[in-house]
């Protein structure tokens, strides 16, 4: 009897009976499922980043038309006195013929014999170009009568043609572009009039209207986001650190402290859009602060960031060993001195790391900003702070949302480009946080 058991057991230990094999197979399957889950998670990250990068990177390159434009005094300055007020009376419509004529001349010089009239040919140049020209002339009235070389934006469709968004087939159906115009663009490209190069304007230019995706940039949005981050930092860092010091070091155990603790835990989990409702009702409707202003966005985001900073700061304070406090108290420091002279400096790397992570969250937050009117179309740069905090501005994530709501598919590229800018900022902030942690964090 015992021999029989020993025999089967010995067999199981070496090769395994059916049941053991089944169990081991189940083990392998379970393992594979785990590995699959990890792979899916990593794959999701890769897919997300790939999708954004592949559709957004092209927004950093832009097609330009380079040509010499004769600034005709007969059109721009009929009075001939270079008086700025008279010059300003010529609207952008007055400038359009200059571009048309110059392009026709450039094509003539290069010996093109396109079937296209000068009018459709000029549509290759962005509708924004006359405005650029006008701005230049108003700033440099002495250049009137001269021939100046300009780098003008090509129209969004032409730009899309070189980025694969527009094809000959799609141009057939498009009212805004024809296959002939695309052929002409190819010829111009060969002649070196049309070039594609890095697009700094995307980072500095303000938003542009629905029909001019080629001119849209994230300049105002970056500035607005930067203003808001300044406000968030100035408000939530001192308040958050002060609150954590009180709760961690001074607060007695009573109902009031409990109330604060419960509040902080719950605020950390309140959906961000509810903070937007608070901002709308309290700051705009009740306190009368202006809509779309960075100050309101900053206040709302500061309230949202506060719990993050408080939680991180408390963890950092808790990590400082009590012996430091005891030693300071032992040599006669007051409690306040022990904390401010010894504990807080030691906890500083942790506090700053938490703050940067909180700021990074605030930078990417969109929903509350929609409610306080940051979706407005803003073309003017806000003034320098502190007055600029009250000017209308946009913000990077809201700009992305804004562009996704527009018809022209070129704005999808712009939105992805803006996301890349946003992600680069987030990456930088997180890198700083990691470096801070690596260099200064002490293990006790």
């Amino acid at each position, binding site marked *: 009897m015992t021999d029989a058991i020993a025999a089967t057991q010995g067999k199981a230990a070496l090769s395994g009976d059916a049941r053991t094999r089944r*169990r081991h197979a189940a*083990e392998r399957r379970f*393992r594979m499922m*785990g*590995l699959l*889950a*990890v792979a*899916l*998670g990593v794959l999701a*990250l890769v897919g997300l980043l790939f*999708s*954004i990068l592949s*559709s957004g990177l092209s927004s950093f390159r832009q097609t330009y038309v380079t040509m010499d434009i004769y600034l005709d005094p007969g059109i721009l300055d009929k009075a001939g006195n270079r008086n700025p007020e008279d010059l300003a009376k010529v609207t952008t419509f007055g400038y359009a013929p200059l571009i048309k004529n110059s392009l026709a001349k450039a094509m003539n010089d290069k010996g093109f014999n396109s079937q296209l009239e000068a009018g459709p040919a000029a549509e290759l140049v962005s509708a924004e170009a006359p405005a650029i020209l006008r701005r230049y002339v108003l700033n440099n009235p002495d250049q009137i009568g001269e021939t100046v070389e300009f780098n003008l934006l090509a129209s969004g469709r032409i730009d899309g043609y070189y980025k694969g968004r527009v094809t000959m087939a799609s141009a057939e159906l498009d009212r805004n572009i024809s296959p002939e115009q695309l052929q002409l663009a190819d010829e111009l490209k060969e002649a070196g009039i049309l070039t594609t190069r890095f697009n700094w304007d995307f980072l500095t230019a303000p938003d542009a209207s629905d029909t001019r995706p080629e001119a849209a940039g994230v300049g105002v949005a970056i500035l607005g986001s930067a203003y808001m981050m300044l406000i968030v930092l100035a408000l939530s860092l001192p*308040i958050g650190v*002060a*609150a954590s010091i*009180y*709760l961690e070091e*001074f607060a007695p155990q009573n109902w009031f402290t409990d*109330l*604060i603790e419960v*509040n902080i835990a719950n*605020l950390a*989990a*309140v*959906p*961000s*859009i*509810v903070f937007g*409702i*608070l901002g*709308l*009702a*309290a700051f705009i*409707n*009740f*306190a*009368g602060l202006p809509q779309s202003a960075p100050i309101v966005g900053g206040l709302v985001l500061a309230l949202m960031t*506060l719990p993050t900073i*408080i939680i991180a700061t408390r963890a950092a304070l808790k990590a400082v060993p009590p012996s430091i406090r005891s030693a300071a108290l032992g040599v006669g420091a007051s409690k*306040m001195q022990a904390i401010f002279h010894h504990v807080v400096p030691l906890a500083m790397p942790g506090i700053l790391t938490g703050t940067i*992570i909180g700021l*990074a969250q605030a930078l*990417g937050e*969109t*929903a509350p900003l*929609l*409610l306080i*009117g940051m*979706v407005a179309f803003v073309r003017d740069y806000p003034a320098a702070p502190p007055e600029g905090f009250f000017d209308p501005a946009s913000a990077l994530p809201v700009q*992305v*949302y804004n562009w*996704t709501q527009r018809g022209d598919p070129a704005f*999808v590229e712009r*939105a*992805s480009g803006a*996301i890349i800018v*946003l*992600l680069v900022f*987030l990456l930088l902030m997180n890198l700083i946080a990691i470096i801070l942690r690596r260099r200064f964090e002490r293990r006790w």
Partner: protein
Amino acid sequence: MSVGSIVLVVLVLAVVGYVLGRRRALSTSAATGTRLHSLPGYYGQTVALFVAVPALLVLAAWLFAQPILIENRVRGMIPDSVIPEGGARSLVMADVRNIAGGLDAVLRRDALNEDALVNGNLDFSNVRVRLADVGVALGSDVPREVFDAAVTYRQSAKYGSIGMTVVVLAIALALGAWSLMRIKPKLRARNVSENFIQALLIASSTIAILTTVGIIFSLVFETANFFRMYPASEFFFSTVWNPQFRGGSDLGIIPLLWGTLYVSFVALLVAVPIGLMIAIYLADYAGSRLRSFAKPAIEILAGIPTIVYGLFALITVGPFLRDWIAQPMGLGNSSSSVLTAGLVMGVMIIPFVSSLSDDIINAVPQAMRDGSFALGATQSETIKKVILPAALPGIVGAILLAASRAIGETMIVVLGAGAAARLDLNPFEAMTTITVKIVSQLTGDTEFASPETLVAFALGLTLFVFTLALNVLALYIVRKYREQYE
């Protein structure tokens, strides 16, 4: 003086106060031959604190209160007769504010002086044209009363800011002088300034309470307004959501609630198995090399802003599902759908589930694993039969936390789920959620008089209560569970 320069002046005064206070402490101590109670810096610190803190607090309070007071005063000046048919007083107030803002520019441009404005002998005839010249566009000609209100508005704002400058600087100087005068070597300056600072610390920590009070107050107040205009029973039980601009809207929450729960359910269906398996694999199977790579990679998912996920849903996942699955199977033609939003949101909450479950699985005592192994169980049997049952309450808590995230999530559903309020089972149809409707009812021109706008507050309150309840429950379960093994 602008707010920025007032703040700057107060701060400079505080620095001056510090220097003076310190010097005065040292000199009185030298003159009388008594030792100072505290280090000399603390005497300076008391002066600086008394100069800066009350003055800045008064400044903040003034900035908050002034617009409200002026608004109320001017609002009373507008007679009902000038409020256009079907318009609201707040629209007229917007005109008043615009005109008041434009008047400065008009005055500067036309080199007019204040007297003309105040005495009312300004040429009123072409006000609209002149305001338009300086960039203030008005919808229609303004009645005399509105213009007068604007002049008063501007005047009060001006006197208000002069008053603010005077009061704030007076407080700073008076308190500074008082605290400077009371410096004597015997003064317990360190205790004074430490008590002051402790009061500041307490005040900072009450901000959290104030925020919650603010949220609840603003939600409840406007929701009450809404229910005065629209019956609560209709809101909670009607199955039709159909807002109209001209009134007569149907504002039933049920289709929105259905969409919210459906999207969140799909999201959890994605996130819970994947997140849980990731947590198990990384905790019990993975080698240190894989873990050091995979754990941060998955945590990056939690740090990516939701607008990025929204765009991903809009440009990649939505069209993919439509072109490869929904259309071939004849299930729908919409690129925004419950499945799009749910899948992407699921990816977003994977890290919440995985890192919370990771903590919880690691909290299961090692002795339980060892016991199971000793009985001959394989690793997966140990996990399935011992660890998961032991960790179940904690995992349920983690799932509830993730669910509350999913319900409150906005940008992914705004860009991925669509805007049509619909009660449907087909996951390839566009549906809408509470958060989407809050955004769409509150963006653009918000007029706080119509139920169509105010419904957003009722929706917000519902959302707040929902997520709060889930969170409280989840935290309770997690805490209870932690105690079990500690």
